[in-house]
């Protein structure tokens, strides 16, 4: 493939990589730097693309390595040990009563489609994503932002399939509750 075509193809993925990096690192400039490094690595190693995964999956893998490198250099290893987290702060016990009913009855959301055109909604959504634990947040973003399959997430995070489903379940329920509290239940909207 001639270089301009490769560049155009890679550029399509930039907004996704930037968003992923920004949500994981919570520093916009650092995110931009790392994504730039991803593109340089990708161009150098374009032959290394196997074609077995999608281009976005490939670029995301490179980005995850860059993020891990960054944490290593900063002396902060992020544990992706989902098992250790099973009883941790990211549980969803607080959302349910002991008999399995919701502690707070889920409410009907009024005109959720309207929110999709409201910039403040996306700010609330990002704030809620930022409150997820590292493992649940990463699994969720890989799935819903980067379009990974569950199988690809398991491989990337090195967790079992059932743990992968547990992480996604927790992330979604916590996000649902967070959005309800921060966005759909407030009067801030209008």
């Amino acid at each position, binding site marked *: 493939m001639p270089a301009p075509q490769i560049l155009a193809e890679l550029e399509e993925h930039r*907004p*996704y990589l*930037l*968003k992923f990096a920004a949500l994981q690192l919570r520093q916009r400039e650092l995110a931009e730097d790392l994504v730039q490094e991803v593109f340089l690595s990708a161009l150098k190693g374009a032959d290394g693309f196997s074609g077995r995964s999608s281009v976005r999956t490939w670029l995301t893998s490179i980005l995850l390595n860059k993020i891990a490198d960054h944490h290593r250099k900063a002396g902060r290893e992020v544990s992706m040990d989902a098992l250790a987290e099973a009883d941790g702060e990211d549980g*969803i016990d607080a959302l*349910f009563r002991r*008999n*399995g*009913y*919701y502690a707070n*009855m*889920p*409410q*009907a*959301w009024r005109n*959720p489609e309207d*929110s*999709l055109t409201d*910039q403040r*909604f*996306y700010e609330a*959504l*990002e704030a809620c994503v930022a409150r997820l634990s590292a493992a649940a947040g990463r699994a969720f973003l890989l*799935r*819903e*932002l980067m379009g990974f399959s*569950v199988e690809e997430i398991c491989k990337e995070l090195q967790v079992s399939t059932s743990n992968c*489903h547990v992480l*996604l*379940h927790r992330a*979604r*329920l916590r*996000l*649902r509750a967070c*959005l*309800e509290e921060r966005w759909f239940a407030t009067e801030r909207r209008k």
Partner: protein
Amino acid sequence: MLSCREVSALLSDQLDRRLSLKERIGLRLHLAMCRACGRVEVQLRFLREAMCELPKRHRGAKRS
């Protein structure tokens, strides 16, 4: 009868894998009787839609 908590796991799982026949029956029976879980089902799908829109929104939004 499945609890709301068990149903919430199936509502999440159905976005990632094909549920077994038994799971689907249990889920649909519960949803037929439980308004809260019906809302959660719709909202989890909405969450997916919102995440799809997220990167598109910011493309030109923040140019400082």
